[in-house]
């Protein structure tokens, strides 16, 4: 009976969403703001990757909020898990096999390099701070799988995290004090399609990359080490 009622409710909700979706003209450039971004994005921000110009420049404040959400989640997780620690003494973890060990050791530096490449070139090619950071964190996940006994240093990861976030905020405040708005792109835009272009966008994306990478690695560390 309960299942039936919830099924009927779900069907009603789905029907409503479909009714609303029907009105949206997909594939037509009616989306007016998006159209503007595509036409003027490179000129106004200097970033060749339009998505980056939207994420870091036009809607940079949202990105600041998003990295704060991640920070909140990481801090909340460590606050909750830190209390719930029950170490069972004498419980041994099976050592990884030779293939896992070698594979992880081989992939770890490559993944770090790929992650760094992605966030450094965030304003030129697809990807950016979040994606690069997530790839770096997955490299650390492999490290936990393949290399026994190796851990990230908690203090270092916190310092990197804090400095990354502070870079973002300080750049924003510099924009404010120069007399314009918060997060104003005050550096020269440079020639589009070169590494040193788009003003503060690459700086912010590199900061985000470091922050996201160390934060997600910290979350993995907490889950694997603390709660055994």
């Amino acid at each position, binding site marked *: 009976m309960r299942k039936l009622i919830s099924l009927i409710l779900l069907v009603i909700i789905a029907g409503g969403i479909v009714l609303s979706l029907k009105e949206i003209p997909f594939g037509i450039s009616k989306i007016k703001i998006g159209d503007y971004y595509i036409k003027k994005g490179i000129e106004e921000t200097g970033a060749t990757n339009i998505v980056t110009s939207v994420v870091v420049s036009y809607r940079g404040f949202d990105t600041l909020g998003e990295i704060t959400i991640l920070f909140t989640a990481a801090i909340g997780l460590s606050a909750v898990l830190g209390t719930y620690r029950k170490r069972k003494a004498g419980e041994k973890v099976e050592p990884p096999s030779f293939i896992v060990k070698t594979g992880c050791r081989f992939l770890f530096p490559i993944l770090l390099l790929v992650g760094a490449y992605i966030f450094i070139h965030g304003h030129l090619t697809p990807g950016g701070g979040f994606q690069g950071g*997530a790839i770096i964190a997955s490299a650390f996940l492999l490290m936990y799988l393949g290399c026994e006994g190796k851990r990230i240093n908690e203090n270092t990861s916190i310092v990197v995290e804090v400095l990354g976030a502070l870079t973002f905020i300080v750049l924003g405040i510099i924009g404010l004090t120069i007399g314009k708005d918060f997060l104003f792109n005050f550096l020269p835009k440079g020639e589009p399609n070169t590494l040193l272009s788009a003003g503060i966008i690459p700086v912010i994306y590199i900061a985000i990359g470091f922050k996201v990478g160390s934060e997600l690695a910290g*979350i993995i560390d907490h889950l*694997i080490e603390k709660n055994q």
Partner: protein
Amino acid sequence: MEIVILILVFLMIVSAIAALIFKDLMNAVIASCVVSLIAAVLFYFLQAPDVAMAEAAIGAALVTGIFVIAVKRTKRFEE
């Protein structure tokens, strides 16, 4: 091209349903990983490489890793 996308969408729905009905949670985690992976490929076909990259790195790699850790710490089978 159309047919490839259709097959991918079909596979995605199948693995999403599979993730729901599997009693072994480890299998369910792998099935949901497949959903993310196919979603990443579809995003790429829809010309959203940025989203595809994020979906692949977070949805397929990190979330799966975290779920596997969580399943190992709790119970493997659903009653």
